[in-house]
């Protein structure tokens, strides 16, 4: 089963090597041809690409990509003021560029931290405005792709330090710290994200001082951070366990203190070991941001509902709209998972 031979020559024997294989090949080819024919016919041949609702309604067995041509801006940017949408566009480009730069192991240097801080500041500045002559846009009007990517990136960035503390806490020699960390992790991992988001959106307002209504975006972000941190903590703990205990003992015998050992010897190795698992978690978090729709934030999934739900002209073509945002999610997530595979190979090849 393993060591499947690669290349066209192996494929030929796989495809036609025996009567049974030939039969399977013919059946699968027929299935692919049938499915491919219908997809091409629906998606391309009979499809309407113009933003023309009349033409879309007239077509019987074809897709209406016109809905994307007409509605791509509200789908990608939600309720952000139309004339100002260059701002979220640049904000997305900035975050994506910094993310791609940090994806390259050669750039794993100290300057990444201030760079990220600057990028996040620029992101908030562009989205929020109110300075440098930019019109102020309240967070209630943020939406679409910038919100999806922003929630994922900021959520992960804030969750990471908390996760680190929880992971170290769960391995601590102090029983109280160990118990508290373990209880928190298991509690959060045992409940659905949606219940944490409900809690953030219904309960946090009760804890703020009267008269100050915390922003719904801040509350949801808090919920996401608390949730993601528990999952990241377990990944980091896995890495910590994989670093041989002798290294700690040797370092302490050499006179290193407890914290310097963790900081300079154990953590760098542990984090390097779990980078692929962390990347998987990044993909999961990116997908999980779609759930904030349920508590009334209009990120990519919510923005689609906003763009099409209130418009009777284009509402019948929801399916095409879903396919459009599914492609956006897919490109982001598939890209990340390919990157994870590449990085795993690169890190295991490195000495």
């Amino acid at each position, binding site marked *: 089963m393993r060591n499947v031979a690669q290349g066209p020559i192996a494929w030929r024997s796989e495809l036609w090597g025996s009567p049974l294989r030939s039969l399977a090949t013919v059946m699968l*080819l027929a299935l692919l041809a049938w499915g491919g024919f219908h997809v091409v016919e629906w998606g391309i041949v009979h499809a309407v690409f113009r933003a023309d609702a009349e033409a879309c309604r007239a077509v019987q067995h074809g897709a209406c990509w016109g809905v994307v041509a007409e509605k791509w801006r509200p789908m990608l940017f939600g309720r952000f003021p139309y004339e100002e949408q260059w701002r979220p566009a640049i904000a997305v480009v900035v975050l994506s560029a910094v993310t791609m730069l940090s994806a390259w192991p050669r750039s794993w240097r100290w300057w990444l931290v201030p760079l990220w801080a600057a990028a996040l500041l620029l992101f908030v500045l562009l989205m929020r405005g109110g300075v440098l002559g930019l019109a102020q846009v309240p967070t209630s009007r943020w939406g679409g792709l910038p919100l999806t990517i922003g929630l994922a990136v900021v959520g992960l960035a804030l969750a990471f330090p908390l996760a680190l503390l929880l992971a170290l806490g769960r391995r601590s*020699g102090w029983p*109280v710290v160990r118990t*508290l960390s373990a209880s928190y992790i298991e509690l959060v991992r045992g409940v659905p994200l949606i*219940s944490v988001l409900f809690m953030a959106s219904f309960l946090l307002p009760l804890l703020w001082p009267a008269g100050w209504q915390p922003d719904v975006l801040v509350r949801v972000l808090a919920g996401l951070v608390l949730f993601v941190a528990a999952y990241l903590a377990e990944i980091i703990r896995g890495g910590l366990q994989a670093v041989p205990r002798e290294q700690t003992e040797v370092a302490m015998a050499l006179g290193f203190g407890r914290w310097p050992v963790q900081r300079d010897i154990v953590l760098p190795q542990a984090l390097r070991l779990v980078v692929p698992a962390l990347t998987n978690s990044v993909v999961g978090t990116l997908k999980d941001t779609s759930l904030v729709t349920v508590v009334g934030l209009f990120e990519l999934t919510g923005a689609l509902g906003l763009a099409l739900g209130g418009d009777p002209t284009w509402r019948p073509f929801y399916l095409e709209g879903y396919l459009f945002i599914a492609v956006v999610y897919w490109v982001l997530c598939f890209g990340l998972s390919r990157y994870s595979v590449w990085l795993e190979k690169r890190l295991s090849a490195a000495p």
Partner: protein
Amino acid sequence: MNGGASRRGVWLAWAVQALLVLAVVAGAVWVVHHALEVLRARGVRSGFDFLTEPAGFSISEGWLDFDASQPFWRAFLAGLINTVRAAVPAAIFSVVLGTLIGIGRLAPHVLLRGICTAYVELLRNVPLLVQLLMLAFAMANLLPDPTEPLRLLPGVWLSKGGLSVPWPMVGEGGLHFEFPERGDFGVSGGAALSPEYVTIVAGLSFYSAAFVAEIVRAGILSVSQGQVLAGQALGLSPVQQLRIVVLPQALRVIVPSLTNQLLSLTKNSSLAVAVGYPELVSVANTTIGSNGRAFECIAIIMAVYLLLSLLISFGMNRYNARVALRGWR
């Protein structure tokens, strides 16, 4: 001197830990107290007494009949039963489908491998919520009307009205399957499954199957090639090699990850709230909307899911102990 220092260290450790416990308890007490104060100031009653009051909403489907005059606790029970009613079939389908796709990804046939790989990469990289909403839209708008249902298999009909499947009935001649029949006013007989139920079970199964497939593939790859060769040497057919030699050993790697996957499947069933299937979270959401008892309802959701998670972990750990190599933990 050294002993004195370490004794001082121990005292310090205990002092810090005691302070930590105090801080956590004080924080929790403050949060609850403050939240109750705010609720009281707003004139919202709190506590679980509402559970015995009539709910005022009805639940359209499920094994437990529920109408508006019955108390809230019964609504939550009906919601919980609906959660289980969706999660258990989805778990079974996803494990079966996922195992087939996982094996298919390693099959010595390039087309089959390609199709299975495409399935995994397509479904794994799109959020479940988007897939569920897409399925719900397709169920409600793209299928034919109930009067002109699609016949998928003998006795299996699909339309906007949902899915009708054969269902076992106890009659005069003992147990027999009742097949749904197509009439002038739609399909009757058998089991009629609502579009929302079909959406959540199908969506969860297809999505989870992609992850199960990866778990199964990793499990099979963990079995050493020598075992397969030994099977060949004994004259076992490829299917026998898989069934007798590879899968039993692969299970040791598969079961712990599969447990995680079943746990997330159960938690993911909470997304049914977005497609209108009345499971636990949906009932709680409706309850919060009608009486504002957010704190209590979220506490119930969390407690129930923790309990379900514990039950699944317990069951799967028992199973894991059976498949694990003897003498190993």
